[in-house]
């Protein structure tokens, strides 16, 4: 949709705090997913209405840059508000099953990790069905390809932008729950944003099918770098991959739309 949301990681962390809050009220993290998702969806809609939506009238290059700047401000805002509200302490949601593992094919698998992989597949499949099969999904694709032409064909561009932005923020609830089950603090949002942008860069912007292999690739690269250089350089790996791809393949590894 040609909006760059730098605050996505911070919104994920916000969702994780929400999950933690519900967990203290004895709600299971996975059961709270719909509620967190809906809350984030509304928050995304409100954020779009209040800020990003005003950029629709901007010309294309200015729109991306300004959405980046706005979300940069929002990221700082959310992070420091979270620090004020919940302190900078590292938190974790620990239901009874958080350490469970099961054995299959002679390996031991952590339960939550497997749920993470499954949920990623479910989200990708759902997104694919939504974009390819529903009328509204098609109008999202149309607006992202050429919003003027879409508008001439009778698509309500600003509403489409609003809903797709809200969906994107609402989907942050899935990583929010999964990250909540690991550990989080107000400052790690940007690290998760980084992973997101690296994966999207690798798979190509606007290509939802490449995300899974790209994510797998980043995960393997991180694991190898931890083995070779030690754990502190884990975050550096993804960033170096990102910069190298940007410099060596300015047009992207796979098909990428022009930004």
């Amino acid at each position, binding site marked *: 949709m040609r909006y760059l949301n730098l605050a996505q990681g911070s919104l994920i962390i916000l969702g994780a705090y929400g999950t933690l809050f519900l967990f203290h009220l004895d709600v299971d993290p996975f059961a709270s997913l719909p509620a967190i998702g809906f809350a984030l969806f509304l928050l995304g809609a409100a954020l779009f209405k209040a800020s990003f939506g005003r950029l629709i009238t901007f010309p294309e290059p200015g729109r991306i840059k300004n959405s980046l700047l706005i979300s*940069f401000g929002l990221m700082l805002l959310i992070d420091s508000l979270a620090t004020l509200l919940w302190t900078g302490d590292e938190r974790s949601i620990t239901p009874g099953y958080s350490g469970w593992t099961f054995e299959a094919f002679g390996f031991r698998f952590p339960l939550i990790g497997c749920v993470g992989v499954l949920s990623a597949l479910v989200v990708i499949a759902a997104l694919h069905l939504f974009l390819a099969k529903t009328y509204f999904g098609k109008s999202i694709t149309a607006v992202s390809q050429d919003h003027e032409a879409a508008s001439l064909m009778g698509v309500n561009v600003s509403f489409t932008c609003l809903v797709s932005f809200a969906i994107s923020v609402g989907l942050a609830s899935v990583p929010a729950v999964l990250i909540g089950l690991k550990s989080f603090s107000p400052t790690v949002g940007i690290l998760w944003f980084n992973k997101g942008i690296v994966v999207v860069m690798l798979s190509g912007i606007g290509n939802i099918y490449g995300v899974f292999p790209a994510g797998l690739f980043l995960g393997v690269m991180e694991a190898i770098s931890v083995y070779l250089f030690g754990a502190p350089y884990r975050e550096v790996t993804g960033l170096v991959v990102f910069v190298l791809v940007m410099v060596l393949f*300015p047009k992207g590894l796979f098909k990428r739309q022009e930004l």
Partner: protein
Amino acid sequence: MKGKTSFSFAVAVLLFAVLPAVIRSEYMLNLFLMYFLYVIIAQSWNLLGGFTGQVSLGHSAFFGTGAVVTRLLWTSGVPIAPSLIAGGLGAAILAAIVGIPCLRMRSAYFPIGTLALAMIAQITVGNLFPVPGSLSSAYLADYSTLSRYYVALLGAALTVAVVYWIVHSRAGLALVGIRDDEAAAEAMGVRTFRYKVLALMVSSLLVGLGGGIFAYHQVSYYYYAPFELSWSFLPTLTTFIGGLGTIAGPILGAACFLGLSEVFAISLGEVHIVVFAFTFVLVVLFVPGGLMSVSTKVRGVTTKVMRRITG
């Protein structure tokens, strides 16, 4: 500089130069020193982000490089002046090596690419130098805040003067042309990439100098401290709020930022960031010219009102 501007610039520098004779409080001196540092960081960022339109979120990498180079040279016995220059040059060299590839990135990728660089630098330096660098007793014996104050003042004056000079030269026209319409500038025969590199390297040189002053001022700090991302966010926030692409904007914005952080420092840690981030979003959305444009508007309105009154 033109007559009036250079006169007020000289008066301001002179006032700051005699200030320590009036104000003896160590706290106030340190506060003004931080202000000069903020001006250096914000104004050097402004050359690249404000006048050339290349919004960088990686300024901390160059600030930190200047700090590391200066600190290591200075504490190993090199006099401070050459160490500072080496710090600036070190930052400019880093800019040439890693920044130039970043400049090849299109529009919105440049901020993210530079942010990635800043994070790489921060994590790597944090791992390479895990212990804080403290000054030895010999250095502590002749430590004086006053000498740091003057070095910082000199740095700030130099930064403002250099940026002013570049912006008002032929190169400045090219930079503004790139910001307003890169394709058109290129079509007019401006070697856009060369000018972007020039802006990046001068900007890094100046902020590296600022990093050196930071290293000269701090008695003890972790080497990764000047690499922290907040040093990248600071110039972006202050310059936007003060007035993007104006000489006075960053100077004004830095004063607001420092003042606000001092007011809230006593009560709660991060309130000033909340206020500033919120203002930043509002400025991007509604007042693209920042405080500077507000003051021009207010001046316009008051002259109109005055004319109406005087008939």
